[in-house]
C-alpha cells in the first residue's frame, strides 16, 4: 500500500519530468546506432568522399551476433552513464532539498521507501532497455541476418542483470550521501575500479559481475549458456540484493536531518 504510493509517485514524477519519454528514445538510438552505422559504413565512406577513385573497401563480414553485441557495447558506456545520471538524485535529491524531512516523519518503513524508489527507476530502465534491444534486434535481423528469439532473450535477460546492478549501486550511494553529484561520481568510480580489477584478474574471477558481457559473447557465438554466465549473473544478482539490504541499514543508522 505505502509501497505502491511511493512507487506510483516516483513514476508520476519521472513522467512529468519527461524521463518516460526521453530515456526510452535515447536507449533506442543508442542500441541501433552502431549496428546501423557499421552496416552503412562503406556507403558513408563513399558519400563523404576523400577516398581515391577505385579504392575497394574490404570489410570483414559482420555476423548478426556481433551486430547485436554492438548495442550492448554502447549501453555499457553511455547507457550506464545515463542510468547513473537519472538515478543520482532518487533519494539524495529529496534529502538535499529537504522534502525528505516531510516524507520521512510519516510512518513509512525506510525499506519501503528505498525499494519502491529503486523499483520505479528499474522499471523505467527496463522498459527503455527493452525497447532499445527490440529495435536493435529488428535491424540486425533485417540487415545482418537472423537471430533466434531465444538467443535474443538470453542476451537481453543476462545483460539486464548487469544494468540492474548498476541501478542498485547508484541507489545504495544515494543512501550514503545527500549530494546527487557525489552519488554519480561514486557510482561511476566504483564501476571504473571494478572494470580495472576485472581486466587485471579476469583469469581468476570468471564470476565477476563485469564478466557478464564477455560470457555473453561466448553464449551468442557458441549457442549454449556457459556455466560462468550463470555464475556471474547469480553473483551479480546476489550483490544487488546485498546492496539493497545495506542501503536500508545505512539509512536506518543515519540521522535524516543531516
Amino acid at each position, binding site marked *: 500500500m505505502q509501497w505502491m504510493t511511493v512507487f506510483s509517485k516516483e513514476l508520476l514524477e519521472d513522467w512529468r*519530468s*519527461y*524521463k518516460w*519519454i*526521453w530515456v526510452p*528514445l*535515447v536507449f*533506442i*538510438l543508442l542500441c*541501433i546506432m552502431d549496428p*546501423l552505422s557499421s552496416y*552503412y559504413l562503406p*556507403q558513408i565512406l563513399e558519400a563523404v568522399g576523400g577516398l581515391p577513385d577505385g579504392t575497394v573497401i574490404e570489410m570483414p563480414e559482420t555476423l548478426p551476433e556481433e551486430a547485436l553485441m554492438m548495442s550492448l557495447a554502447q549501453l555499457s558506456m553511455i547507457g550506464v552513464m*545515463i542510468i547513473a*545520471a*537519472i538515478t543520482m*538524485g532518487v533519494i539524495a*535529491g529529496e534529502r538535499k*532539498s529537504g522534502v525528505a524531512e516531510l516524507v520521512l516523519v510519516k510512518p513509512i518503513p525506510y525499506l519501503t521507501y528505498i525499494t519502491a524508489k529503486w523499483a520505479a527507476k528499474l522499471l523505467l530502465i527496463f522498459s527503455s532497455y527493452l525497447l532499445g534491444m527490440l529495435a536493435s534486434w529488428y*535491424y540486425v535481423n*533485417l*540487415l545482418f541476418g537472423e537471430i533466434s528469439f531465444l538467443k535474443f532473450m538470453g542476451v537481453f535477460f543476462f545483460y539486464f542483470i548487469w544494468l540492474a546492478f548498476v541501478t542498485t549501486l547508484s541507489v545504495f550511494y544515494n543512501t550514503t550521501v545527500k549530494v*546527487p553529484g557525489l552519488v554519480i561520481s561514486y557510482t561511476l568510480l566504483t564501476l571504473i575500479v571494478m572494470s580495472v580489477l576485472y581486466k587485471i584478474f579476469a583469469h581468476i574471477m570468471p564470476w565477476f559481475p563485469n564478466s557478464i558481457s564477455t560470457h555473453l559473447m561466448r553464449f551468442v557465438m557458441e549457442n549454449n549458456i556457459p556455466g560462468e554466465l550463470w555464475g556471474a549473473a547469480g553473483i551479480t544478482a546476489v550483490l544487488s540484493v546485498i546492496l539493497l539490504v545495506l542501503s536500508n541499514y545505512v539509512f536506518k543508522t543515519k540521522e535524516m536531518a543531516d
Partner: protein
Amino acid sequence: MDELQQLIDILPIIAPVIVIQLILMLVALVSLIRADDTNGPKWLWAILILFFSLIGPILYFIVGRRQS
C-alpha cells in the same frame, strides 16, 4: 541515378532513426519552453538541443532541467 536509387533504398531504414531524433529534440524543446527555470540561459540550451542531436537533448535533460 544510381545514388538516388541508393538513397531510396536506405530511406525506409534510416527514416525511423531520424524521426526518433526529431521527437527527442522536440520533447526537449517543449520541456525547455515550459520550464520555469533552467541551469544556465535558455537560449544556450535551445542552441545545444537544436544543433547537437542526441547529445544536446540528453545533456539538457540531465544537467539543464532544474530538479524540484
